[in-house]
């Protein structure tokens, strides 16, 4: 069985989506052949279409952008709908990570992918909404199923089972196992460090243009 893992973050390096897909591979790799696909830009290449057409399941991992799907990925979906691939037995799964703490905030970004499945003629297999995605690319590697990523790993393990069996699951919403107030504090400290690193001051974060 071939499974395409699609990274839908516009970031080429250090994306949370990339971390999530790497972790998913830990669960999937022994059970299926993995095809890595990057959708960092708004166009799907012929080569990518060919690879995608050979897979039985596609797993999209992407960030939540303004309550929906990043614009470049939306362009890819429009293109894929028009491409009318021959292989219509494909199951589609979505894993959306968001900067906010609550995974449920990714609900409508999963719904867009589900709606797209109907228009493009694919089968929706369900998804995961992950809250607290902002810290995933900075976290050191932990043992699978332990530490702050434990709830994410559990959700990935569950969805792996569904993907392998060609089954559909209800969307599953999780957050990093890290208190919300600490996540908020860490993020806010992070913005202050970054702006200083760029030669600015912490107070510039609240700059208002007239």
């Amino acid at each position: 069985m071939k499974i395409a893992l699609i990274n839908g973050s516009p970031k080429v390096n250090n994306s949370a989506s990339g971390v999530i897909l790497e972790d998913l591979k830990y669960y999937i790799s022994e059970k299926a052949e993995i095809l890595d696909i990057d959708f960092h830009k708004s166009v799907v290449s012929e080569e990518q279409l060919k690879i995608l057409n050979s897979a039985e399941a596609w797993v999209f991992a992407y960030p939540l952008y303004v309550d929906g799907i990043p614009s470049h990925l939306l362009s890819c979906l429009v293109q894929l709908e028009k491409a009318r691939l021959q292989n219509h037995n494909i199951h589609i799964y979505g894993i959306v990570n968001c900067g906010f703490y609550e995974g449920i905030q990714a609900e409508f970004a999963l719904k867009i992918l589900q709606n797209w499945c109907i228009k493009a003629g694919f089968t929706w297999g369900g998804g995961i909404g992950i809250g607290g995605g902002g810290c995933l690319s900075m976290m050191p590697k932990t043992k699978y199923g332990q530490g702050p990523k434990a709830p994410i790993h559990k959700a990935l393990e569950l969805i792996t089972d569904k993907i392998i069996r060609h089954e559909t699951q209800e969307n599953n919403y999780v957050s990093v196992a890290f208190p919300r107030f600490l996540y908020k504090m860490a993020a806010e400290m992070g913005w202050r460090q970054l702006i200083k690193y760029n030669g600015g001051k912490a107070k510039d974060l609240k700059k208002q243009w007239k």
Partner: protein
Amino acid sequence: MKLIITDIKDFNIPIQEEHKIISPQGDIRNCIGCFGCWVKTPGKCVIHDGYEETGIDMSKCTEMILISECCYGSVSPFVKAVQDRALSYIHPDFVIRKGEMHHKRRYENVISISAYFYGDNITETEKETARNIIEANADNYCGLVKNVQFYKTVKELEDITL
């Protein structure tokens, strides 16, 4: 000021009040997720292609009107690119509102959002998704939803009053 963001290139629906229209005049680049609009040039996007100041435009408007093809319950890639590139309308710090995490305001203006979607085969589920997303946008901008409507064609849209 009314801020209109539309994917219709030759947009010519009359608007009574002071307004600004953002429509496809030249290619738009997509957000690259760098957060430069928060930590390099706070308030402005770092990509210079003519679409970098929507966050500022939003701070000057009382009403934001999205006029877009409906793509699976989302606005179209162009309108979404404009929205993604305007992340800096809000401040990077978090606040908890109604038990959920959102961002702090950068500006004081309260935006009321209207959305006019078009498309010849918008399903009921897509309409529901679209309404939900506009509501979520209003929560995140700390604004309000004024109106969400659906049309079959761009032609039908010509009868709306903005």
